[in-house]
């Protein structure tokens, strides 16, 4: 299976450079090719579930060359990235007709997918940086794609903070190389295991937390997200909020913490603090918003807090030598919430794009009564709202439940209480969305709105059905063992995991 690993990067990368050649007349073909790429990548990601393997790029041995690694966590992330990419690409077929230069858009979209897939499967720290930059630069350009005042301003702000984050990460990588003499994650992990974490490596760790925290928009570093995510075209908002902040931020950070540096008590506390801050600050900033997409963007910050809280709780329990069962339960909650959030938040952004396209506005106060005009969008939005607020039987309920159980079992009653309260505030905020967008009086100006067409509805219904079906991932034991458990085990096993997978 590891032989197909390069395809996750090579195929979108190559097609991305071919697409702009199509020009204006070949728009239909370009769209078709781009959709075929994302759908085949999704099929490939499904085929990779439960497999492990290593691919040595160019047949260089892992001592000197770059390796691509497929393990439980990587295959889970590949699944999340490519599901959202396929849905967003399908949504773009019709949505992006409003913009000019569609082939360029598709090309940037595929570059972003290539970068994210690369970040997920690489086993080399510097290579991680390269793919991270590919995905980031494509996303900067996509945020500013509309080239209007707000978009350019948001893109510049995002780019400045993103470049600072990249510099911090590269400095951290340089420090790791200086201290261990290796860039391959498994060799680095073995060197760190042998020498322990000295001052230089501890400094590198703090640089990584700041750098990847900026990419993940955790609360002290969140300033760019509420501007950047709403300014992008809706399918790109779905990609950014749905998977980019996770693949580039939380995934990369937890990979380095668990599998390279090894967990420690201070790092566990830092993650928990960042998680709780993001959860609370994000949700309270979201409640007061009247711009549909801006409200969703603030909720992204808040929901990322849940993911980081779960992972940090797991790290803390492991570092303290507590019961590994509760550690793996906390990490399961975090990772499951990560994939759930990828699905329901991208669905919410797609519905907001559908509403914006139909009504021409994002202001909640100018909408209302769309329930009869846009029944499919309404159904999708209601399902996603229920999922993000943690209403059973949707997927968001189960991941939050697991997080609460893990927090209680590990003795952190305060954290469990915060989790529940934030969830209730989220519910309040999404009741507001339902009330102002879909219920109430239909304003005179919106008499002629109608449901948006085929590909957009298909993409939304696909993600909405996933919101319901993904509950099975945790409820059916065989599915849990096949999909989620290997990802959890990869993190719980810690430093030894990367060494074992690399056969050192």
């Amino acid at each position, binding site marked *: 299976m590891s032989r197909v690993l390069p395809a996750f990067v090579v195929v979108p990368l190559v097609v991305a450079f071919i697409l702009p050649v199509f020009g204006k007349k070949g728009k239909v073909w370009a769209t078709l090719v781009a959709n075929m790429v994302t759908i085949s990548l999704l099929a490939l990601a499904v085929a990779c579930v439960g497999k492990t393997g290593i691919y040595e790029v160019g047949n260089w041995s892992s001592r000197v060359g770059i390796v691509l690694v497929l393990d439980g966590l990587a295959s889970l992330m590949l699944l999340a990235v490519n599901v959202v990419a396929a849905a967003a690409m399908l949504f773009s077929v019709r949505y992006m007709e409003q913009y000019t230069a569609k082939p360029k858009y598709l090309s940037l979209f595929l570059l972003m997918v290539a970068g994210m897939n690369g970040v997920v499967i690489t086993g080399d720290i510097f290579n991680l940086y390269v793919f991270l930059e590919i995905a980031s630069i494509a996303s900067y350009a996509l945020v500013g794609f509309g080239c209007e005042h707000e978009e350019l301003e948001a893109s*510049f702000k995002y780019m400045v903070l993103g470049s600072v984050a990249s510099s911090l990460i590269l400095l951290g990588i*340089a420090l790791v190389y200086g201290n261990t003499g290796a860039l391959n994650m498994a060799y680095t992990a073995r060197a760190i295991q042998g020498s322990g974490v000295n001052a230089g490596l501890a400094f590198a760790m703090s640089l990584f937390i700041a750098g990847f925290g900026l990419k993940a928009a955790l609360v002290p570093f969140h300033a760019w997200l509420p501007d950047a995510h709403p300014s992008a075209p809706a399918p790109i908002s779905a990609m950014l909020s749905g998977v980019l902040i996770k693949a580039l931020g939380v995934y990369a950070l937890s990979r380095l913490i668990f599998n390279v540096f090894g967990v420690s008590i201070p790092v566990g506390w830092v993650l928990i603090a960042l998680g709780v801050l993001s959860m609370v600050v994000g949700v309270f900033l979201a409640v007061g918003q009247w711009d549909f997409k801006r409200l969703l963007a603030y909720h992204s910050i808040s929901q990322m807090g849940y993911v980081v809280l779960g992972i940090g709780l797991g790290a803390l329990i492991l570092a303290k030598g507590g019961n590994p069962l509760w550690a793996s339960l906390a990490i399961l909650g975090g990772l499951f919430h990560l994939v759930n959030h990828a699905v329901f938040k991208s669905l919410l952004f797609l519905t907001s794009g559908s509403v914006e396209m139909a009504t021409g506005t994002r202001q909640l106060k100018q909408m209302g009564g769309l329930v009869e005009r846009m029944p499919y969008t309404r159904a999708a939005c209601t399902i996603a709202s229920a999922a993000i607020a943690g209403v059973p039987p949707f997927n968001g309920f189960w991941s939050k439940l697991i997080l609460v159980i893990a927090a209680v079992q590990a003795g952190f009653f305060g954290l469990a209480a915060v989790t529940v309260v934030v969830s209730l505030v989220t519910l309040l905020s999404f009741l507001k969305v339902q009330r102002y967008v879909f219920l109430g009086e239909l304003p005179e100006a919106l008499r002629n709105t109608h449901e948006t067409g085929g590909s957009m509805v298909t993409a939304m219904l696909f993600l909405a059905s996933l919101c319901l079906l993904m509950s099975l991932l945790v409820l059916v034991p065989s599915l849990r063992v096949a999909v989620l458990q290997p990802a959890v085990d990869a993190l719980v096993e810690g430093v030894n995991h990367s060494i074992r997978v690399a056969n050192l």
Partner: protein
Amino acid sequence: MLYALCFLLFMIGLYCAVVKKNLVKIVIGLAIMEYAVNLFLIMLGYRVGGTAPIIGRGDVATGVDRLAARFVNNAVDPLPQALVLTSIVISLGSLALLISICIRIYDRYGTFDITEIRRLKG
């Protein structure tokens, strides 16, 4: 000592990117940060009196053991140089995009002053 100076350069870049009000000066600050990191990477591989990590045809005549010993003792680490090349190319790409967005912003707003470019809030 040199590392500390390198870190100082990094902090100057960060200061410039955070404090300055002019878009172009912010971009210059980011570029300084990237140069500082590149310099740091190069210094990791630096060696006083080092030679290039290349074995020429003439060197083989000196005997394999002595050659290997000399190589290990004198050759500089080539890897950071490869990394710096990659990172220069990447920063070139992001710098080009940054500058082109600056130009677009100037077209729209007619100013480079970030205190006047504030349509997004909340």
